[in-house]
């Protein structure tokens, strides 16, 4: 696998400035600003339809903003898509796995697409970390939702991304899997990487993120430190209850 060395600290991991994005007549993002530094985990909270998943797709280069500027490692995902995608690990609502292949075959395929050397070794390591080693040779379609999600996280981590983007990673996971996920999120940030995850669970986010960004009306309305749970709850509660 190509080595990327230590994070490029001359740029933020992710910088989004004045992002707007519409789907038809629906304006999802209306000038969103957000920065994620190296060594930081940022939780993005917001009501349904507030644009959290859209933000992840934009940062990952799956979609282009209508206006505004996105930089990942200082690069524009629309212009340097391949370099950005190589540095980013994404976990979405969808598992990004083929039901008719085994977990191992799915990870092997992802490893080939990311040109990972010594794939077998890396798959074993990631599967061990996610606690799915015993299920590696089972078809993904026969696994429970939680196990599938763990394979999905394994897929996102396989190429040792510097930036992790996770869309509601905690939903549907049991206690053990949540502990593993926490280890992944905090460990990634602690090792100098950057993490952005979306969630609806403020209490869960507060214990794992350095900062909490509340998204409402298409922009980041407030940013709190991870420890400022009470203030974050007040604002988030108002967004969830308020008209959208």
């Amino acid at each position, binding site marked *: 696998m190509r080595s990327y060395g230590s994070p490029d600290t001359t740029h933020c991991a992710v910088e989004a400035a004045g992002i707007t994005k519409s789907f038809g007549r629906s304006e999802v993002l209306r000038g969103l600003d957000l920065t994620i530094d190296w060594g930081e985990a940022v939780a993005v909270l917001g009501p349904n339809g507030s644009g959290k998943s859209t933000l992840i797709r934009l940062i990952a280069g*799956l979609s282009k903003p209508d206006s505004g500027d996105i930089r990942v490692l200082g690069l524009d995902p629309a212009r340097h898509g391949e370099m950005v*995608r190589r540095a980013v690990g994404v976990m979405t609502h*969808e*598992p990004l796995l083929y039901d*008719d*292949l085994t977990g191992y075959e799915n990870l092997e395929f*992802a490893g080939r*697409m990311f*040109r990972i050397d010594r794939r077998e070794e890396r798959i074993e390591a990631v599967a061990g970390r996610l606690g799915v080693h015993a299920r590696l040779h089972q078809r993904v379609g026969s696994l429970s939702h939680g196990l599938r999600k763990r394979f999905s996280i394994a*897929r996102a981590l396989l190429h040792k991304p510097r930036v992790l983007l996770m869309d509601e990673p905690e939903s549907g996971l049991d206690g053990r899997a949540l502990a593993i996920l926490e280890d992944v999120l905090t460990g990634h940030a602690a090792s100098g990487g950057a993490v952005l995850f979306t969630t609806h669970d403020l209490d869960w986010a507060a214990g794992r993120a350095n900062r909490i960004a509340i998204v409402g009306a298409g922009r980041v309305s407030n940013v709190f430190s991870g420890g400022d749970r009470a203030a974050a709850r007040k604002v988030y509660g108002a967004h969830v209850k308020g008209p959208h």
Partner: protein
Amino acid sequence: MKSYFGAIWAIVRKDVMLELRTKDFVVSVVVFSLLVIVIFSFAIEPTPQVVARVAPGVLWTAFVFGGVLGLTRSFALERDGGNLRGLLLAPAPRDAVYVGKMLASFLFMMLVELLVFPAFVVIFDLPLLHPALILVAVLATLGISAVGTLFSAMAVNTRAREVMLPLLFLPVVIPVVIAAVEASAAALGGADSGEVLRWIPLLAAYDAVFLVACAFAFHFVVEE
């Protein structure tokens, strides 16, 4: 360059593995194509004159309509579980993803043709394979796969994808069908190789133009 071909190989390999496991593409298209041929054999008076005129059209109609089935399935597989998004998150050029999917469909369609053609020859009591027909089949199938892969990627996220794909795809492959039918008619009618190969430049030009155009257009088709 290595990453370009690596991605293509990874996608073809993955699609072959899935096909070996599910047999969705080949089995459904073989059965469909055989049914079309059998139904036509009952529907027409199979005199040698009628067969010589109609059989090549029947054969390519069966392959093209069967291809629609298979191509729909090919991208439905990528839609399930968000796998198309998974492909697009890899650090591979978009056109490598297109070429990988297109080559997998091409291989499956060639396999279908290999399985269906002997049955066609027996049912219509036609002479055995003309060597030039192999080249015609390869080029025609490449054209069908090139166009079909792009349109199935376009249709996969629409509500009426089963209807949308043939509506988009069939008008565009008409030149391929005409060339393949005419070349097959010449081959099965006992014409010399020159008569059959007359259609090769048209097929080759069609393939070259549509492979380049579709690989370029794929980038815009898959953008969210």
